[in-house]
Structure formats: C-alpha cells, structure tokens
C-alpha cells in the first residue's frame, strides 16, 4: 500500500514536470509589440499582441518561434529579410499553420477568427509591397 502511494506520487510529479517542460513556452506579453518603424493599425496590433507576440519576441521561451520571427527585431532586419518575414507571416497565417495547433488547444481564445486572419494577412501583404518600394 505504501509502495503504491509512492509510485502514484512519483508518477504525478513526473507528469506535472513533463507538462511544464513540454509547454509551448508561452508567457503573457507584458508590453506592446515593438514594431517602431512600422505603421500598425490598432486592430492589427491587437491581433499580434493577442495571438503572435507571446512566442515571437526577444524574451520568448520558444527558441524556434523566436528564431523564425522576432517582432522586436523585425524592423532591424535588412530590407529583403523584412519583406521575406512579412510574406512568411502572410503565408502561415493564411494556411492556418500559425498560431500552432498546440498553442490554440491550450489557449482557444487566441485562435484567429476568419476576420482576424484576413486583417493580418492583408496588413502583412501590404507592408511587404510597401517595403519593396513598388
């Protein structure tokens, strides 16, 4: 009986530990997105703050998320890279790859609605065109 309790305790502890270590690395953003050089309308800013910035910022625990896109550093990148990143945002949001399935399961309210998707995609496309100078 004592053994059983011990086993259960260890199992519970391990599961709790695992659920922490396998998390999305998401933390509530404390500040607004740093996109100094960008003209970001309020509605787009809200979407980014709510559904993207949590993983895609300098202090993010998601190494991969930060490497692929860091909103804090986006406007520091060279022109061709900024355009590339904006086009990538547009693509992954359009085809529903972002926010990730795992993230949306954990935070269902952060799933993008169709309207939010359109807003974000249109903004990213337009910014890319604007930056390209055409």
């Amino acid at each position, binding site marked *: 009986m004592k053994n059983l309790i011990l086993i259960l305790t260890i199992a519970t502890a391990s599961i709790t530990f695992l659920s922490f270590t396998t998390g999305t690395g998401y933390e509530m953003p404390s500040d607004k997105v740093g996109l100094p050089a960008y003209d970001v309308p309020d509605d787009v800013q809200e979407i980014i703050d709510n559904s993207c910035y949590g993983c895609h910022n300098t202090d993010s625990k998601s190494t991969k998320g930060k*490497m692929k896109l860091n909103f804090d550093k986006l406007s520091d990148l060279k022109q*061709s*890279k900024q355009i590339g*990143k904006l*086009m*990538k945002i547009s693509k992954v949001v359009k085809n529903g790859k972002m926010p990730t399935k795992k993230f949306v399961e954990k935070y269902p309210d952060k799933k993008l609605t169709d309207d939010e998707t359109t807003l974000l995609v249109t903004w990213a496309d337009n910014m*890319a*065109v604007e930056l*390209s100078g*055409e």
Partner: protein
Amino acid sequence: MKKVFYIIIVIFILAQFLSPKLPETSFSNPDDLIINNPEMNANVQDILRNSCYDCHSNETGYPWYSYISPISFLISRDTKLGREELNFSEWETLSKIERAGVIDDITDEVSEGEMPMSIYTLIHRDAGLNDQDKEILINWFENYADSLFE
C-alpha cells in the same frame, strides 16, 4: 509459417497494381532558377541540383525503387508536396516579394537542418549539406534577395 510468407508475397504483388503515378518530369523549364541566373557559381548549382532539385523542381530523378509499391507512395507524395511548396523550375513566375518569402523559408530551413529531409539524405547519402554547403547556399540566396530590391 509458409502460409504467412505466401500471403505477404501476394499482397506485395497486388500492391504493385495500386502503385501511384509519380509526378511527371520535365527537363525543359524556361522559368527555372538556375537557367535564369547564369552568373550563379557552379558550386551553388551543384548543391541545388544534388540536394534540392529531386523534390523542388520538375527535374526529379526517380531511382528504380521509386516505381515499387509501397515506396512509390512515399516518393510520389513527397515530390508532389515538395513542388507545391517550392518549385525551382517555376521560379520566374513568382513575384519579387514572393521570392523574398520563399528565400526566408529556404535560409531558415537549411540553417536549421530541416532541409533536405532526413529520410531523403538517409538514402541519398551525398545530398546532405555540411556547414560549408549551407553557408554557400544561404549566402547566394541572401545576395539574390538583396538584388531584387535594389
């Protein structure tokens, strides 16, 4: 035991009739990246052809086992998906900003070792990219991306 063996053989033979049609190949692609960039260094060309073009162009080289089920299903699917994602044979049909987006993908995935896929390099041992190959490829694409917006 013998029975099981025969059943496996029969299933294998029947599976050959179900084999999918592999995506078609074409070696005349006027919108191809390499053809339209004659100044591209030979080593960049070699890397592209050797490590990328089987799935990301119309110039897929199908080895003999590509036609054998069930491997044919895997090769057919990966080639189809690879071309949908990025097809160097149709490069010139992309707009400048689309090219910049694709290049961001290429540089990220190559530097992270996500491409070429490990299942591909497992069989095509010489298709794997070492650090020097990665650097050559990424540099070329970054310079190319810059040149688009000058």
